[in-house]
């Protein structure tokens, strides 16, 4: 997740209230970003209304339908058992409705993706602000910690944590916490860099001279100028955290079955690919679409917020 490379220079003195209308009009001109936004909205709606959607075909993601399988446990019929009752076919060995699994799986992906990103942004912003603003030994310590976090073999650590945390601890919360905890270093570094630049600005110095408290300067003067950076960074981090969840579930340390998860379905489907490819296709396409959507939307948002980078792409 080294996302700190090219993104976002300081957006300096742009005022949020004034910019919102221009932001929308700029975004509107970027068709790719709009497509991404629409896709995201659709997935969010799917996640919210998952029980309703899967009940449309009279299914849920947990009920076995052994009659939909042939004698070897593979889905019977065309396209992995696609039928009026099972729109995406059924899962091998269980006969569970794949449409319901994909629909419910979006909940897992989005909850972990959004939750972990929020946590990472919160941690990263606070650490970056404090390090950049106060400088000195605070900065030295924070920067070293950020370096360590960058070099940390986080995947291995996540797997180990997933194995030792008691089963009574809710799995989704655990995933949010561990993915979020290992994802804050890059935003912290970017925020720190921008804070370093901002604190030398005239209006900050003026506030200091007028006797403003550190809290006031940090949260009222500097933070608003970082908001665009943080928003764009968040949008681009979400697909990475969704991917992390999928990777952990693929490796068998994500959410415990039978809770649907795209990553686990993909992991199971790999061995079934030559028998019933549609089992891999549906969850795979869903994961691909949502990560792509967040990425193009994040790109569009960055361009809209930061006029200087627009020429680069068009």
């Amino acid at each position: 997740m080294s996302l700190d490379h090219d993104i976002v220079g300081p957006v300096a003195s742009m005022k949020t209230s004034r910019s919102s209308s221009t932001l929308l009009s700029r975004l509107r001109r970027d068709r790719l970003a709009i497509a991404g936004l629409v896709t995201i909205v659709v997935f969010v709606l799917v996640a919210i209304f998952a029980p309703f959607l899967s009940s449309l075909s009279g299914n849920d993601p947990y009920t076995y339908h052994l009659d939909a399988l042939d004698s070897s446990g593979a889905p019977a019929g065309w396209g992995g058992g696609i039928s009026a009752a099972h729109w995406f076919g059924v899962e091998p060995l269980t006969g569970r409705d794949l449409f319901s699994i994909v629909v419910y799986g979006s909940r897992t992906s989005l909850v972990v993706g959004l939750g972990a990103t929020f946590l990472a942004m919160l941690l990263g912003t606070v650490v970056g602000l404090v390090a950049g603003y106060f400088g000195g030994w605070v900065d030295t310590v924070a920067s070293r910690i950020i370096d360590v976090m960058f070099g940390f073999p986080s995947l291995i650590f996540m797997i180990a944590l997933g194995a030792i945390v008691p089963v009574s601890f809710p799995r989704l919360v655990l995933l949010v916490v561990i993915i979020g905890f290992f994802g804050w270093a890059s935003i912290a570094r970017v925020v720190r860099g921008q804070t370093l630049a901002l604190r030398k600005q005239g209006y900050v110095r003026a506030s200091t001279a007028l006797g403003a408290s550190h809290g006031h300067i940090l949260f009222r003067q500097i933070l608003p100028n970082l908001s665009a950076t943080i928003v764009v960074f968040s949008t681009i981090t979400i697909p990475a955290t969704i991917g992390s969840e999928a990777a952990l579930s693929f490796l068998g340390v994500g959410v415990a079955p039978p809770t649907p998860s795209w990553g686990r379905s993909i992991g199971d489907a790999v061995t079934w690919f030559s028998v019933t490819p549609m089992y891999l296709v549906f969850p795979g396409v869903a994961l691909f679409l949502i990560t792509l959507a967040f990425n193009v939307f994040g790109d569009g948002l960055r361009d809209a917020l930061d006029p200087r980078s627009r020429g680069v792409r068009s």
Partner: protein
Amino acid sequence: MNAQRSRSPRSLRQTALKTAAAAAVVAIALTGCNANGDKNADSSTGTQGSTTDTVAGGTLTILTSATEVNWDPAESQNLAITTLGLVERRLTTWGVEPGKPGVVVPDLATDTGTVSEDGTTWTYTLKDGLFFEDGTPITSADIKYGIERSFAPELSGGLSYHKSLLEGGDTYTGPFAGAELPSIETPDDKTIVFHLTSAYGDWPWIVSQPAFAPVPEAKDDVATYSQQPVASGPYRVAETKSGVSITLERNDKWDKATDDVRTAGPDQIVFSLGQDATVTAQRLIADSGADKNAFGATFVPPAQLAQVANNASAKERLVTSDAGALAYLAINTERDGLDNVKVRQAIQYATDKQAFQVASGGETGGALATTLITPGIQGRVDFNLYEAPAGGDVDKAKALLAESGWDPASRELILVSEDDSVSLSKAQAIEQGLERAGFKVTIKPEAQLAATQTLTQGDGDYDLNVSAWQPDFPSANGNIQPLFDSSQIGNGGWNIARFSDPAVDALIAQATAEIDPVKAGAIWAQADEAIMAASPVVPLVFTRNSFLHGSNVENFYIPSFPAYPNYLKASLAK
């Protein structure tokens, strides 16, 4: 411990290789050992392989998921007909032919043993013309030393049946401190005499276990013997690339005239280590290049079984065992709620055996089970105390729960499962079945070693577990004692239902001491039924193991017992 049970393909294979511990042993197992053993088997589900004349020559490759092979006989639970049997001979071994009951046959000894009147003293005489790979003759002292070192605490993990049977074995700590075990006598170089604490009719099977292989004291180095054993069989370990491969070459000091069970066809045998089960199956289905001379030591996963079903060429090369090891759902009888026999009986009815069978690969994966003793074992009685359709009887389960007075919604039951996808799909089949009756089940995936630890050590912090049991020798003793004797709870024992019933313990003791196999069989059948009435486990299926081999591999078959291919006879066509 991998070896121990059979739950996952991973552990299974390892078992085959390393084989497991006795008790728990490996996976699956026993398939019927006598003629009526395959009563439940559906002959349409596969072939058990065939035999033809052995052609000498070629390099046979064995693809295995294990990452190492421990050749130390004191640390191995290997089946007599798999890996270790190629290199290390024992006093007796297993005579296994396709479609015939497995029998114990002489290996280094001239017969399967002469027993004294009271059944406690067994005498064996060695054949002539037996040599180690370095040319020194094999004597009874080498066998005695091999057994003695299995008692040493630094060599652990081997089968331990003999340790409690030999007189003085409970206090003996191995030869490295200089002490001998007086209950093993070697009056001359050819004779070895065992004194047992009590009569034990299955002793000839015990002396086919790895610890009864000869180890020359002069060449024994505890640190390296697991990599560089001194061969007594037709092959010796020529080269070991850690984690990659092990190459066996012919041992020219082995004389075919002394050996009735090993045909030693290939010039070279290469174990290709650390191979993924799915990839192995895909390679063998494709059957190209050198893979024609290979077979998989790993169970074919359900997905590839479905693939093979649609591939005529691969179908011919798929070898499926008879109904073998018992897969079962263990219920921790010490936990709140589950200590109530009515609740456990409700679980019998709530369990969806059909879904479990499908998760195991359907008909090819196993035949539905209702008893603990596997088909084909002496004395087995087929009964069903909990008559229900294959998918379970939810109404009856709910009625029993209401009677029990325990509210299944009062707490979640923790189902410990290994974290591979095959184990997890089996766990989910159980979970969805029980939830139909109102139970709340949480699956706790754990890595294989951690799961074994949870189940066999400590005080049993789990409610349910899906396991499979392949007995170490074809007797009801191997089915029942390791799983249900109260002495096997914790401390590495495999009584994972933590079932303790003095009446059952007494039946087990009585049957073990009975020398007449028919009478013993009747007592075992009685024990089977007594245990099922208390419902500490739900028998699910008698699993069938499937293996694939390349088109150039001949004499590849799975006997009635055990449900593993016989490595000792596999050979290559010209």
